[in-house]
């Protein structure tokens, strides 16, 4: 019979130095795929996702002992991953604007060079337009559009209001439409 340990038990085991690594591996095994796909849809490139995910997991390791369990473990991990991805997107946006002559070309080039990406031209264009949005709008748009996450769930994960999320999503959709119509 397969042994299943709930999150609270895993957190409790993690607080015991002798069981810490074993508990952490179980947490990783349980949530790594979900977090990976969340981050991947935000940062697109696999290598970038890998970096962001590893940083996320290290932050989770460092913070788990003090985790107050006022929210679900996954919600807390999801929030850390989202913040880490936003930090990455901000840095990438700055870097692209600073280094590349044409930031859009630079981004599409990076996506095309990713061996683990099969997007067609329309998808590349969409990604490129999304990447021009402010990082928080990117996050909200990707979570709603690609993950089809309900606003209520998003509000919990991002610690914000449903109204603010709806406004962000609305702005993002408008900007994307304008970008597409201008190139038609």
């Amino acid at each position, binding site marked *: 019979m397969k042994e299943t340990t709930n999150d609270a038990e895993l957190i409790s085991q993690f607080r015991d*130095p002798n069981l810490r*690594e074993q508990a*952490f*591996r179980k947490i*990783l*095994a349980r949530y*790594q*795929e979900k977090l*990976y*796909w969340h981050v*991947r*849809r935000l940062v*697109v490139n*696999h290598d970038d996702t*890998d970096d962001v*995910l*590893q940083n996320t*997991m*290290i932050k989770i*390791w*460092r*913070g*788990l*002992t*003090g985790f*107050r369990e006022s929210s679900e473990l996954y919600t807390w991990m999801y929030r850390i991953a989202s913040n880490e991805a936003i930090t990455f997107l901000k840095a990438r946006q700055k870097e692209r604007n600073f280094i590349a002559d044409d930031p859009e070309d630079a981004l599409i080039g990076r996506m095309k060079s990713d061996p*683990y*990406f*099969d*997007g*067609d031209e*329309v*998808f590349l264009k*969409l990604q490129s337009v999304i990447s021009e949005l402010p990082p928080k709008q990117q996050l909200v748009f990707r979570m709603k*559009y*690609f993950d089809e996450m309900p606003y209520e769930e998003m509000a919990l994960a991002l610690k914000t209001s449903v109204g603010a999320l709806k406004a962000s999503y*609305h702005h993002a*959709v*408008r900007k*994307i*439409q304008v970008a*597409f119509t201008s190139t038609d």
Partner: protein
Amino acid sequence: MATEKYIWEKDGFRKDPYRIPQGYFESLGDRIISRIDPGTEAPLTVRPTLIRPWMTWVSGIAAVFVLGWFGLREFYLKPHQELQIQESLSHFTDYYGEELNEGLLAGFVADYEVEVSFLTQIDYQDLINAEPESTEELIYESIIF
């Protein structure tokens, strides 16, 4: 939403164009663990709080007792005590009448454990010289409750 529909039509589908290297998730745990320095034990990030939950309870209960005690003292014990002393004083002065002197008065004060502010409010000689009917009033005025 019309604009969202527009993007869907442009995008055509929501298929995931992403792939991952084979065996990626199998090795991810090891790679993360290898990056964690065992020396960096997760520090307890419990925020210092000035008031802990048990302190709130204790201070609440203490406040109830203090308020209760002052309420009882002000509205029950003190009027009751004043009345008792007044009655006793009345009997005392009636009994001694003109023979009342400093020594007898001190005895009364000691017997009833009352604090008397003779020096600030009353002159002893006034007490001694006072008419018997006004003595009780003079003594009572000098008593601090």
